[in-house]
């Protein structure tokens, strides 16, 4: 009996599995198609399919680029201090972000938040800070405290808290619970559990996020100069206003080199923390 019915059952089972697999593949393809359609719609809305405009615009960009050559470095001595300012702004902004993020992250992590109300509030605060662009913050702070690097640092710092605090909180949530329990078991206070049970575990991730954010803030601080926060960005805007394109290109090259140096430096520091 069973020897006859079993092969049949198996065949039916195979068919079922294959059918299920076919359906899965189909729904997968459907999803991919939907994503592609969404992208095409976005192209259409933003005018990427406007052939005539592109045809006119692209050559204009070509002309602009050709006017930039050769880059003009003769004012390089005037860029040294602004560049140092920009670096200082990025370091100070990142440090400010870390200082605020550290306590905030422990309130925004499920496993260390004192209660769900504080947790919800801290998360909301992080989201709010992240969703206000640093340029807008820069404009607000320039209006509040006047021109200079101070508004730049405040804007970079506060906006960064949104991302740095969130990543810190996530690292805290992924900390292994066993060392935390071990700290509690030895009679540690809640504060000591955080400083000695959680911090040693998440320190490397914290350092990693901080260095990434510094790289980002360095690039962002060149832009901050445009809203009057000083630094190399202010020089860039100045040359743009004068339509001095060779000088614009020279400054862009300087910024590019500086970004590469900062990225390399941050990579070296990150490796040290492993």
């Amino acid at each position: 009996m069973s020897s006859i019915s079993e092969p049949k059952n198996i065949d039916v089972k195979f068919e079922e599995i294959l059918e299920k697999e076919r359906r899965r593949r189909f729904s997968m393809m459907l999803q991919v198609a939907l994503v592609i359609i969404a992208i095409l719609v976005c192209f259409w809305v933003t005018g990427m399919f406007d052939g005539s405009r592109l045809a006119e615009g692209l050559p204009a960009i070509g002309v602009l680029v050709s006017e930039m050559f050769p880059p003009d470095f003769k004012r390089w001595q005037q860029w040294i201090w602004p560049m140092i300012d920009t670096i200082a702004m990025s370091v100070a902004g990142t440090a400010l972000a870390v200082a605020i993020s550290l306590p905030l992250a422990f309130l925004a992590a499920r496993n260390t938040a004192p209660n769900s109300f504080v947790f919800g509030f801290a998360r909301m605060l992080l989201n709010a800070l992240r969703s206000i662009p640093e340029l807008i913050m820069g404009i607000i702070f320039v209006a509040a405290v006047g021109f200079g690097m101070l508004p730049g640092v405040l804007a970079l710092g506060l906006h960064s808290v949104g991302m740095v605090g969130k990543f810190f909180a996530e690292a805290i949530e992924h900390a292994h619970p066993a060392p935390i329990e071990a700290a509690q078991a030895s009679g540690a206070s809640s504060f000591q559990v955080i400083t000695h049970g959680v911090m040693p575990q998440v320190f490397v991730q914290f350092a990693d996020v901080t260095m990434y954010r510094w790289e980002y803030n360095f690039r962002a601080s060149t832009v901050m100069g445009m809203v009057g926060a000083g630094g190399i960005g202010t020089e860039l805007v100045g040359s743009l206003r004068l339509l001095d394109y060779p000088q614009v290109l020279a400054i862009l090259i300087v910024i590019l080199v500086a970004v590469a140096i900062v990225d390399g430096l941050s990579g070296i520091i990150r490796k040290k923390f492993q």
Partner: protein
Amino acid sequence: MLEKNLSKTMSSFISVHDISVVYSNGTVALKPVELEIYENDVTVLLGPSGAGKSTLLRVLNGLVKPTEGYVSSKNIGALTSSKQLRTHRKNTGMVFQQHQLIGRLTTLQNVLLSRIGSYSSLRTLFPLGKNERQWALNCLERVGLIEKALERCDALSGGQQQRVGVARAIAQRPTMILADEPVASLDPASSERVLGMLRDICKQDGIPAVISLHQLEYARQFADRIIGLSQGEIVFDGPPLDLNDKALEEIYSAKKL
């Protein structure tokens, strides 16, 4: 009978009064339990996975709050306030199954971690003093790991890591040691070494130990007293020699009607 009388003459170190534990998801982990842990015993909690061994151990130092009942200790009395609980935890060394160490810290740093409870939060933001370091090294010496003091913990073998766990527990100068399946993830040779070490230390220092195990042979080999747990109930309590087939059946039979 003889053992019963003997036990009575020994003084109780910690008592569990009518404790039951129901977890927030409704799991009944411990049915009402009465228990005395005696001063000079190595007590082994024996039972299959899910019997409630970890829960009972955590009740003994307040990491799990009992749903009903309370724990009292000879030195402190009933453990009710959070201050009493912290004092009790400072005096209780705990060894865990695994992972309680922080891998990227050195062995010495891990041992020192158990000392922080004795200092103020502010003080522990700075490195502990030389006497504490010497004491931690002394504890590492006792478990035979002095050579590894400055190595990262994650570079050590499983057995060595668990010995660091023991060093960490005794660094607290505990008046009692709790160990939750301390050898569950170790090979037989390391298991015997760690359990032997725990037993020797407790005997030398004259402190009680409560160790949960699921391996019968180790329980027989290292316990003065075995408490058999099954589905949150104590189904056996006595010296290893009294642990007969009938008792084992009670401990390990999965379902009872």
